[in-house]
């Protein structure tokens, strides 16, 4: 075989082996996901959440708030579309909305909000103390803007959807605006 042909075939085989790119941002190294434990308090009937109890499932996470008029509902509507794109078999994937607005959102309210987009979605809300801890553990920012003593403050919150794989590793960050079909494609590969 002539050398040029060999080199060409070698090149094609390398291209053929290249991994298909992900649509989300791949975290490298994919460290174990930080802890996320919401146990609530006596005055806050809770949708309890322990992320480490969900090993074996891909967990799709978003940190938002139920008074969010634009970005959160756009994201959750995109989730719902991605879930539909995955077809009838959506086992192995958990979709969890976590409020970062404990002043206004009780866990049950966050849960009802998430379920408006798809009945399979789960929502919950931390206590103040739990929120403080999860912001530190996940190295994310969320804070009220405007006067939180008034009803019309807004909340700055993480922009990305976070994806934890079935082994509990924090694998992907999905930027806002990623198409629902592309989110579904990434999740299909992780499941």
């Amino acid at each position, binding site marked *: 075989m002539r050398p040029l042909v060999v080199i060409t075939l070698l090149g094609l085989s390398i291209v053929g082996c290249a991994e298909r790119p992900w649509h989300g941002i791949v975290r490298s190294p994919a460290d174990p996901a930080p802890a996320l434990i919401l146990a609530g308090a006596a005055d806050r009937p809770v949708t309890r959440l322990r992320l480490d109890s969900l090993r074996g499932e891909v967990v799709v996470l978003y940190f938002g708030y139920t008074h*969010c*008029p*634009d970005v959160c*509902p756009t994201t959750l509507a995109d989730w719902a579309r991605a879930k539909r794109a995955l077809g009838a078999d959506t086992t192995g994937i958990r979709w969890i909305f976590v409020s970062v607005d404990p002043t206004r959102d009780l866990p049950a309210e966050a849960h009802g909000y998430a379920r408006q987009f798809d009945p399979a979605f789960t929502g919950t809300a931390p206590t103040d103390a739990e929120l403080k801890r999860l912001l530190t553990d996940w190295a*994310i920012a969320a804070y009220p803007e405007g006067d939180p003593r008034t009803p019309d403050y*807004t909340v700055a919150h993480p922009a990305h959807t976070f994806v934890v794989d079935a082994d509990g590793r924090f694998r992907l960050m999905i930027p806002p605006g990623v198409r629902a079909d592309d989110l579904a494609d990434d999740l299909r590969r992780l499941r």
Partner: protein
Amino acid sequence: MTSRTICAACASGLLLLSGACGGSEQGSSQESADDGAATVSVTTATGLAAVEPWARPADAGKNTAVYLQLENTLPDGDSLIGVRSEGAERAALHESVMEGATMRMRPMIGVALPSGGRIAFRPMGPHVMLLRLRDPLVPGDTVEVTFDFASGRSLAVRAGVRTP
């Protein structure tokens, strides 16, 4: 103010208006790309036009967003200086902005609308925020918002509520 609300089915100008904005969508989500077929009314008044207004469903007491495109077909420019709605305790012009990895909203004040220009309110961008809805908005409802301009003109728009 004279204003007319025209159903899409009978608005002869709708196709032209819709066509004019076909290339302008910078929607960051698939959702905005899907907007085209659905909504439903165009309101015109003294050279201002609202194209494809729609609102998200939301519970009473919560906030929601209205999206549309505003066009100015007059020879003079104008500025959008406010918005109001009977459907909510308060209405405001806001813009979602991503700063680093954090999503924030900031108020928009005095948005310029030059002659022949257009403002696109779209998901994950500029939007009309309705705060503390008086009644729940469910698909099939409509909600009216009125835009106020520096020239003294106003534009009333009725947005259909729908699940994107």
